[in-house]
């Protein structure tokens, strides 16, 4: 009789979950909150990890004077320690109808769960936003910390509804209205929008959030195999576009798709962010433990 193992969550297999628990997000910048956390700030702090020495100045806390050195050279030096501050990890999952194709939304939720688990297990504040219907308020997971919040996070992501026509740039603005705190934002979307992402990324940057943008595209979007004359129907707006000789335009389509990815990557790079395009048919293990790990998104 085969051994059956109860899955902790439907989003991630137990082995992936176990490995993710030992990983942590690796931001380029140290955008942390003043509240104590496990992210070392650039400033001196009160952690146990030694950072440097400096000359004693009147008024300094004499508890940090290195008395051994004072005894040998009769000059007071102050010991400095690294400061550990809390980082806020914001998960923004695009749940609009455009994500409901070929497993894009499922991969987005899996990756969101993975990043959330990393945050919770590294004593960081994790909050999540999901936008679908433009007329309705976004679904929000309020900031939470600690391993005790793991179930809340996973339940929130498991029960995320799909559909709607919320564009990602509007979803970012809507989320920022409700968000407080510095840290990192993980954007999980296809970024197929008619709007401009520049303003959205500017807002995120000015809000002190380092951008981790993951563009999830379906195989049909990455390498369409289309011929003839077609009438395309937008899944979100139901608008139509008649295209003749689609096969002839596929080369141009690939140029535009790559141009969009390059444009988004450039926007992120200018704001010390990161950008990566993944296919929805890729396995979450491959994305997490291979591509993201090798690119230094996580460690």
């Amino acid at each position, binding site marked *: 009789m085969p051994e059956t193992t109860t899955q902790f969550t439907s989003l991630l297999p137990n082995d992936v979950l176990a490995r993710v628990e030992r990983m942590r997000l690796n931001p380029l910048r140290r955008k942390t909150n003043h509240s104590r956390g496990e992210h070392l700030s650039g400033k001196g702090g009160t952690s146990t990890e030694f950072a440097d020495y400096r000359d004693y100045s009147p008024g300094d806390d004499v508890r940090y004077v290195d008395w051994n050195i004072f005894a040998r050279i009769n000059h007071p030096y102050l010991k400095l320690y690294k400061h550990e501050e809390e980082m806020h990890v914001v998960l923004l999952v695009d749940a609009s109808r455009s*994500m409901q194709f070929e497993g894009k939304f499922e991969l987005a939720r899996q990756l969101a769960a993975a990043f959330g688990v990393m945050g919770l297990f590294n004593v960081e504040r994790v909050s999540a936003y999901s936008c679908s219907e433009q007329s309705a308020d976004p679904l929000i997971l309020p900031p939470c910390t600690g391993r005790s919040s793991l179930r809340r996070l996973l339940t929130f992501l498991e029960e995320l509804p799909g559909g709607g026509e919320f564009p990602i740039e509007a979803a970012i603005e809507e989320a920022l209205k409700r968000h407080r705190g510095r840290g990192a934002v993980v954007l999980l979307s296809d970024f197929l929008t008619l709007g401009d992402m520049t303003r959205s990324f500017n807002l995120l940057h000015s809000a002190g959030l380092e951008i981790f943008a993951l563009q999830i595209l379906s195989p049909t979007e990455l390498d369409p195999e289309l*011929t003839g004359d077609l*009438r*395309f129907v937008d899944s*979100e707006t139901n608008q139509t576009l008649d295209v003749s000789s689609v*096969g*002839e335009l596929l080369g141009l389509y*690939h140029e*535009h798709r790559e141009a969009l990815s390059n444009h988004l990557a450039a926007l992120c790079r200018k704001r010390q962010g990161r950008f990566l395009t993944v296919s929805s048919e890729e396995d979450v293990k491959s994305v997490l433990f291979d591509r993201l790990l090798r690119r230094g998104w996580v460690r």
Partner: protein
Amino acid sequence: MSWLPGITTPLAAWLFALLVPLVVFYFLKLRRPRMEIPSLALWRSVIEDQRVNSPFQKFKRNLLLLLQMACLCLLVLAAMQPFVRGGAEQATYLPILIDNSASMAATDAEGRSRLDVAKDEVRDIIDNLLSDQRLTLISVSDSAQRMTEFTDNRRVLLDALDAIQVADVPSRPEEGLQLAQALARTFEISTVRFYSDGNLPTRPDGAGKPMAVVDFDLPFDLQFHKLDEPAANIGITAFNARKSGQDRWDVFVRIEGSTAGQTAAQVELSANGEPVGSPESVVLEAGQSQRLVFRYDSADAASLTVRLQPDGTDSLAADNLAHLELPISRPLSVYCPSELVSYRHSLEVLSDIELSPGSDAESGGDPGVVTPGLGAMYDLVISDQAHDRNLEASTSFITGLVPEDVQSLMTVEEGLAEVIDWQRDNRLLQHVQFADMDITEMPTLADGVEEAEFEQLGYEILAHGNTGPLILQRREGPNLSFHLLFHTDRSTLPYRVGFPVLISNLVALAREQANLSDVRGAPTGVLPSMVLKPEREYRVTGPNESSATQSSNAEGVLKGIAAREVGTYAIREGSQIVQQIGASLLDATETSLHGVDEIHFRELTIDATTEAATTDRPLWPWLAFAAFGVLLGEWWLYLRRPGGVPA
């Protein structure tokens, strides 16, 4: 402007109206499938970029439509059946005469006969036949045969063309032209095309050059396409035998070469399959001929065959074989009443004659036990008795009696007649002088009777008197008869030097009629008449196992047997062969292979052209092919995969 293509079916241009629904349906995109995609964002930018950046965007966007329109236009143009005008004027009804006489079997250096070359040219015309054109094929040799009705059915025409075979007979284009003339009464025929090697019956012109003259009034335009002359040829043009003594024949063979070059051959004569003498070698310069004489001793009937074994080039095979049937050697049986003393005197001095009645045995016209030729009781009957006219004879000479069918045209009056004119070249009257001859009977034409009326009855006037005809000749089937309308005993003729000459000529003619002195090889075309059993059905088997059934008439004459090929023809009654006869080409014109460059008709002369006729060439197959190519291109364009798709 002749370079503009013609249109056969201009009404098909209405089909261009189909372009309207084509464009409408294209833009309505009735069959454009809907496809839901996550977002139009990328495709919108793609379309906008395409519109902005591509100078030929509109063209490229509608390239499929343009290709479809091009395909439709090509198909409509094909339906209009345009054609490139050839040099020849287009004719709706076009009879094509194809010479299939013996010389058309002559081969060129590549082994192709001239009939094959002609067929190729006609096949080209059939292949490029326009929809409103109708052809009829007529094969022309010594007779004309219409192979098809006027039709545009290519299969029928090609089958009929393949069925045309060379006949080993001389050419007579009049037959085909008359057939075309008859067709012109029913159909609107403006042009007739004649494919021939130009090897037509000729006669010398003023300068002695051969000139083809056709006694025919052309009611249409004749296009004479002459085929190239083939290589050299050598052949037998005459084969006959003459009796040179008791049971002895001199056999004459004439060998002629064409004008194309030197020819050589071995000539072999055989009798009943056994060689006669040794083969003779003949070498002829271009256009030369040579007569060979063989001696053959036999009293029995024999079938002679002369065969030519060419050394080197020989274009025509049909003239390398000739046949000759020698009769049984016997004396000429002559009946002459005892009262005609002058005739009997003249006959008795001639050799190899069996004269009846004999001086002591017969007295009143009993034919006795003679075996005359052609089934007649006598070979020659000379008489002045009315009842003797009923004697069967291949040659008869009646004097002093007017034939019954001529009696209404003339009377014999008392008076003195004289000979005004006579045919000096007639075989009977050769070297006979009638001048100053006195005749005490006066054959006189009835009032209002013209001499032409004698001709209508089948008589030929050999001598004219001052009041009417004096001597008549009539050929009736195989029999030849002469009628002296005055009695020779009432003239000075028996006392003249010309009388024994006249009798000698008569005997010579009778010998020829009975095939006792001169025998000629039977030419192809129609076999000579034969006397067999009356009213019997005979089966005639030809050289190539061809078979036909023919019946003899009440007199037992079997005639009109077609002999289109050189070889031996067997006449069978049931399964038994009753007679065999060989037919040979024996035509100097056909052997020479000389082709004339012009044909002289009664009122005009037609020049030959050696170039192949440039016919109207239909363009619809090319247009249909182009439409198919465009369709394939459109399909490929519609389905083609993009290049350089990133992985």
